[in-house]
């Protein structure tokens, strides 16, 4: 009946998977993962907070450039396709990456706008090696327990990008990876079928 038992976490996951950012602007060029997350956060507030009352399409239009600028969409796309990435043609790969950005912008726009603006405390940073690190933070919500939000940040060519967001242990990348694999196998292993489904969704 109820899909998840303690779905408080689900709520937060849904609401915060890409959001809950609130820190004083620190918008110089980011020197380390922490200040990068701070930069993303202050940018998100400026862009998304006024969008709370807008339509899904309007919010998606505002979120998309943020995703493109701050998220490593090619590597996220690649992870989400899993082993199917290799089966896909180069055209399918780039088409998938493009439609994925639209899909995430649409799916998370509302949660993003609603939850932006709460206090975020950045905790430790763990160096994962190979230019990757995880920035741990907690977001204070208006009601209920504070939410743990972990950011996987990677460094490439001197700039930082987000590779995954985990809210209360629920990973954005893993959740969609399973979902996409399921759609692909339903369509006999066809990646282009998934692309069509996503296109339909964002239309």
């Amino acid at each position: 009946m109820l899909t998840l038992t303690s779905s408080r976490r689900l709520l937060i996951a849904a609401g915060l998977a890409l959001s809950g950012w609130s820190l004083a602007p620190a918008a110089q060029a980011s020197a380390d993962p922490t200040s990068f997350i701070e930069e993303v956060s202050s940018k998100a507030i400026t862009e998304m907070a006024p969008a709370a009352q807008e339509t899904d399409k309007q919010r998606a239009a505002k979120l998309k450039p943020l995703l493109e600028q701050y998220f490593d969409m090619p590597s996220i796309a690649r992870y989400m396709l899993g082993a199917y990435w290799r089966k896909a043609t180069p055209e399918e790969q780039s088409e998938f990456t493009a439609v994925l950005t639209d899909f995430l912008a649409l799916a998370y726009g509302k949660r993003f706008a609603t939850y932006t603006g709460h206090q975020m405390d950045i905790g430790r940073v763990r160096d994962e090696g190979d230019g990757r690190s995880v920035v741990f933070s907690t977001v204070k919500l208006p009601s209920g327990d504070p939410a743990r939000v972990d950011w996987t940040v990677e460094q490439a060519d001197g700039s930082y990008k987000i590779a995954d967001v985990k809210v209360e242990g629920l990973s954005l990348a893993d959740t969609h990876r399973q979902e996409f694999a399921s759609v692909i196998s339903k369509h006999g292993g066809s990646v282009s079928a998934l692309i069509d489904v996503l296109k339909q969704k964002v239309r």
Partner: protein
Amino acid sequence: MMLHKNSKFRVTLIAATLGLSVLATGCATKPDPADEAAVQAYQEANDPLEPMNRYFFEVNQFLDEILLKPFAGWYHTALPDPAEDGVRNFLRNLKSPVILANDLFQGEWSRAGTTVARFFINSTIGVGGIVDVASMMDMNYHEEDFGQTLAVYGAGEGPYLHLPVIGPGNPRDYSGRIVDYALDPLTWVGYAYNVTEINTARAGLEAVDTRARNLEAIDELKKGSVDFYATVRSLYRQQRNDLIRNGESEQQASQIKMITDEMIPEDGDAPVDFKAAQSDEQVTVAE
């Protein structure tokens, strides 16, 4: 959740019977062993009874739409937020004995202490558990159940199972629930005084409380999903794993996967064990 815990057993029996009948045709088609991507997806899903599970998932979605969701919506509208928090605190306090038992089974002495302290503080100063005074004293609520204990002891989860009314789970977590039911003093109070209705009421209230807190979240999830069944399956597993680790991602070796060329198997390779590629933990303190 919706039903009296005792009737859960009956429901489980019915489910098992129904399940067996669906089973005949209910097994997922195994992928072509030569199709390495399909094999990997199949193993990652760990859902051999997927057609049956999907059927029960649809049943539950229907029950949710006609019963639980409307009722939870009404409850959410009728009750002011502090009252809703009071209900949740009260229900959480009732779980203390089961949480404590599992804290102890897992050798989590400090968390066991927190559970005891919370129970006494909230039951007294907190007016029978309605006010969570303990969390204001930095003793925050945590969950623990026998399914988690089994996982800590090294039991695997087994294949995914989505049962009617009960929802997502797996053999490990369902076994855990039966043990927790037996561990719960309220179960025995119910039987001893012939007031098993209290358990029914409690289970019903838990379902409504949880659903009421997630009205918008679940709508958004559903709307933003291209395969809601698979989304729920993944979220269930991730949530359980997070609970088993006690949410201590900072202390754990990272679960975050590296996305590099080596991670994508070459044709014919076995699925990659992502954890094997994790780097050693190096912690630096921010600021």
